[in-house]
């Protein structure tokens, strides 16, 4: 019933795409994190003209499916003439650029909410103590709020990175040959969805496992000051 030869043949083929999957994930994670920090600073700035655009952005990107966002960027933007004439066209012409852009824009919105949760979780007394000790607002944010907020945000951030990794599979809908794209080509040729898709699922689950393990270590490292018996 189960074609083990096919599994053995298709796993190396799919692993060719792991580089693209990881690249999509890492590049859009970095860009998304930068965007998220900017959005966070805009939101907590206390200035209406900064916090409102950030709120609107987060509302739109969290309220629509990532697939629709990918399609708007890849298929939709070329309809607009000024996009085709702009300097960004070389990026937006390629499916790779569009996939990275969509994933980064989408995840930036989610991550900024996570970071905000971290910042709001920092004990107020710490900030007061810091200002009593004469630290400026900027110093307080850099040396007191940020390290604690980062630690508080790690569990949610790690979940978000996992869902980002899962979203990279959607790049296969705009012709990119990541692991999912390769798997879909193999299934189209052999019509053996069980063998190919289940092996791919195992690969994704292993990747999820390593991401969670990695962030687990990072969280323990960031929380080391909380240990009492060390």
């Amino acid at each position: 019933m189960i074609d083990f030869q096919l599994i053995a043949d298709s796993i190396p083929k799919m692993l060719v795409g792991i580089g693209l999957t990881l690249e999509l994930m890492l590049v859009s994670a970095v860009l998304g994190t930068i965007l998220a920090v900017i959005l966070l600073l805009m939101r907590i700035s206390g200035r209406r003209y900064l916090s409102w655009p950030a709120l609107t952005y987060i509302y739109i990107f969290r309220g629509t499916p990532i697939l629709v966002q990918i399609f708007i960027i890849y298929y939709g933007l070329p309809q607009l003439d000024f996009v085709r004439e702009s300097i960004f066209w070389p990026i937006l012409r390629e499916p790779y650029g569009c996939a990275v852009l969509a994933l980064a824009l989408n995840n930036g919105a989610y991550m900024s909410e996570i970071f905000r949760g971290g910042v709001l979780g920092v004990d107020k007394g710490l900030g007061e103590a810091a200002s009593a000790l004469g630290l400026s607002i900027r110093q307080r944010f850099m040396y007191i709020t940020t390290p604690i907020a980062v630690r508080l945000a790690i569990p949610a951030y790690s979940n978000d990175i996992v869902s980002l990794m899962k979203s990279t599979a959607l790049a296969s809908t705009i012709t990119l040959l990541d692991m999912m794209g390769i798997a879909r080509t193999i299934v189209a040729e052999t019509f053996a969805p069980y063998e190919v898709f289940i092996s791919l699922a195992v690969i994704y689950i292993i990747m999820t496992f390593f991401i969670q393990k990695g962030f687990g270590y990072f969280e323990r490292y960031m929380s080391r000051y909380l240990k009492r018996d060390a």
Partner: protein
Amino acid sequence: MADLVGWWDDFFWGSIVVVQIFAVSLVMMVLFGLMGAAAKLSNSRIAQSIASAYTVIFRGTPEILVLLLIYFGSAIALTSVAKIFDPSITFLDIPPFWAGSFAIALVVGSYATETFRGAFQGVNPGLIEASRALGISQFNTFIYIQIPEMWRLALPAFGNHMLSLIKDTALISIIGLNETLFVAEQAIGTTGKPFTMYVVVGCIYLSFSTIITLTVMLLERKANQHLAGAR
């Protein structure tokens, strides 16, 4: 706007399909979540490990992969069974509507499992003891004390699961369900205006998520009513 003339009704029917998928998969998602939570909280080792396997598998696999596996996998199984009875059949599938709602409910149900489990564990044991001490039966304690308390605790995360569900319905267009994204593709085929059409789809989904967010806010206020005086 002129490009949209003649397509409004198609988008409307597409939205109806989104609502139908959402309703069906919501029921399934709650069932999967409750079954998973019950298994995780049970004393049976076997049930516990089945539930853990369920959450690990479906939280670590992309939705699109689950969707394609269920749709094409079931199609292959069905076709081979059908061929025994009628050799002339070449392809038989479960309708994309059912395969799709089952797939997204499975994925989101694995997240709901953890939410429900956490919420049941978060119910103050003192409430249960008090209820039992007042002579309320175990069954009635479960229905009148544990369920409403757990509901209150689970609501915020549950709202996010509903948002994931409504957004995942967009994926089902990949296996050919005639929801809004599918309508947009047809409209683009005739009008050649991808940006306009996909933005319309985006607006439709945005209004659905807004409705869900507002509903959850109302439900939360209702569920926390009894706490208002205590603050």
